[in-house]
């Protein structure tokens, strides 16, 4: 059963579509007679598919389509345009606005139901997670862009998997994951330290919800002083999150302690983030040596955090004596995007940085 939003100013048609989709597909159908109301409903509780008329008073179907595509929470929902405008120019404009399918009235209900089923099946296939398990990102040298990369990876996973991803910020001294996503870090994992009975419901209650569908376990806004974070608590939390979400991304602080070792133990893949500067490379060589017990799951990611030319990747690989799993290019737009709480990975699919993150996920998986 899927949730389908139908937007049309013809009341009779709306009712007929509702009846047919409920009877033949057992779908939950939400109706709207005009564009602004439809957008409000879609953003509040995103549907699995939308059927939209083009010719509506106030906001046209083209505009509804464009706004759905511009919002991270509805960017990937399948959209069928159902309209009486049957000309090639109309079809072209609708597809340009982001529609997946174009049907002209009159249409038989069988045709409409078939098209709905096809698009829902296609989306279900696309929603299979790009990666399943836990990816941990770290560097024992700060300032190499670990948090930004963790946010980009998690956002990409959430978008591709219909929100089925969780990002964990384990930095005990005011981590910046929530900040980069434009979220206020309340609640955060400091609230779990005192919890007597840690279960899925309690952990879920401490997760933030991002508009992309990504769930976030934020770190406390102020550094924790004089209170130890129990290793067993973090072990349980990570275990619950792994059961609850197909993909979990963890942003580790630049230290090796009980908590980071717990995350490294639980991870199915560890991304060591390195920049082309000598101190970063030296730290990574040391980290590889210290973590050699997990050598098989260590992956090295080259992250360019400053503009300008870089040494050849082959030179870095020779120095590290390891291959790089991916290289993330510098994009000046990323800083502005993060300042707005909207990382490029969510809002600019054409950016080389976004594409590099997607390629990285494929390689890591």
């Amino acid at each position: 059963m899927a949730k389908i939003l139908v937007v049309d100013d013809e009341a009779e048609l709306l009712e007929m579509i509702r009846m047919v989709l409920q009877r033949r597909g057992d779908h939950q159908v939400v109706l709207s007679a005009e564009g602004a109301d439809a957008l409000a409903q879609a953003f509040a509780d995103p549907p699995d598919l939308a059927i939209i008329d083009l010719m509506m008073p106030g906001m046209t179907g083209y505009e509804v389509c464009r706004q759905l595509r511009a919002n991270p929470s509805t960017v990937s929902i399948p959209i069928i345009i159902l309209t009486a405008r049957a000309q090639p120019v109309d079809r072209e404009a609708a597809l340009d606005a982001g529609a997946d399918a174009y049907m002209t009235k009159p249409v038989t209900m069988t045709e409409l139901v078939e098209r709905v089923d096809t698009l829902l099946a296609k989306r279900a296939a696309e929603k299979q997670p790009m990666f399943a398990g836990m990816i941990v990102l770290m560097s024992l040298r700060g300032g190499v862009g670990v948090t930004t990369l963790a946010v980009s990876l998690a956002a990409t996973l959430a978008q591709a998997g219909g929100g089925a991803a969780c990002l964990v910020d384990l930095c005990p001294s005011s981590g910046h994951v929530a900040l980069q996503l434009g979220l206020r870090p309340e609640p955060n994992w400091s609230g779990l330290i005192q919890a007597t009975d840690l279960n899925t419901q309690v952990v879920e209650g401490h997760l933030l919800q991002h508009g992309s569908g990504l769930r976030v376990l934020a770190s406390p806004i102020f550094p924790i002083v004089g209170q130890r974070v129990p290793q067993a608590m973090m072990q349980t939390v990570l275990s619950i999150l792994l059961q609850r979400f197909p993909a979990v991304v963890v942003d580790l602080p630049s230290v090796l302690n009980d908590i980071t070792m717990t995350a490294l133990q639980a991870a199915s893949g560890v991304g060591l983030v390195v920049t082309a500067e000598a101190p970063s490379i030296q730290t990574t060589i040391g980290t590889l040596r210290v973590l050699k017990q997990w050598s098989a799951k260590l992956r090295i990611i080259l992250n360019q955090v400053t503009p300008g030319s870089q040494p050849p990747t082959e030179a870095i690989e020779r120095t590290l004596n390891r291959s790089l799993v991916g290289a993330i290019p510098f994009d000046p737009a990323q800083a502005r995007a993060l300042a707005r709480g909207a990382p490029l990975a969510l809002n600019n699919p054409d950016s080389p940085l976004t594409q590099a993150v997607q390629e990285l996920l494929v390689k890591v998986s």
Partner: protein
Amino acid sequence: MQEQLGSVWLVADFFTHRYRISGRLDVRYQKLAGQLNDNTTSFLQLEDAYISNVEHPADIIASYASSTLRKQNITTVVVAQQEDGLLREQTYGSYFGTYLRTVFLTVPYFEVKGYLRLSGKLDLRTVLTTGTDAFVPILDGQMRSSVRPDIVFTGGVILVNKDRIGVFCVEEEE
């Protein structure tokens, strides 16, 4: 349950000199061709009219719940289904003794290609002047902008206002 989404309303594209008006016409009592050729009224009443400039025909610049078109200023009407655009006597059982001729004609801003159904010897003066019908039906029509050739409209039938035709050409019979 009604299986097909259709009604007593016909949605068609009406073209004036510079505008495309997509709207619903009540065809319960009279079909589109009948209403266009009805010389007892000079106007056509549309509901839910959506207006676009012909140079940007997909961009809706205005919409109105009700609007009136002056028939003499309509250059063409593009209808998706042939049977919706023709009179009953022009469709069912009317094929006997008729034949189709490929035609090309111009109206302001557009050139139209398609087929003209004839029942006798072709005489364009007869087609264009005889009878009270103000609109001539071009079957399986294609209407291309004369200044923006990428803009094309197609229809099962295109009803063309005879008074707005500039040139009317007929292909030679093979």
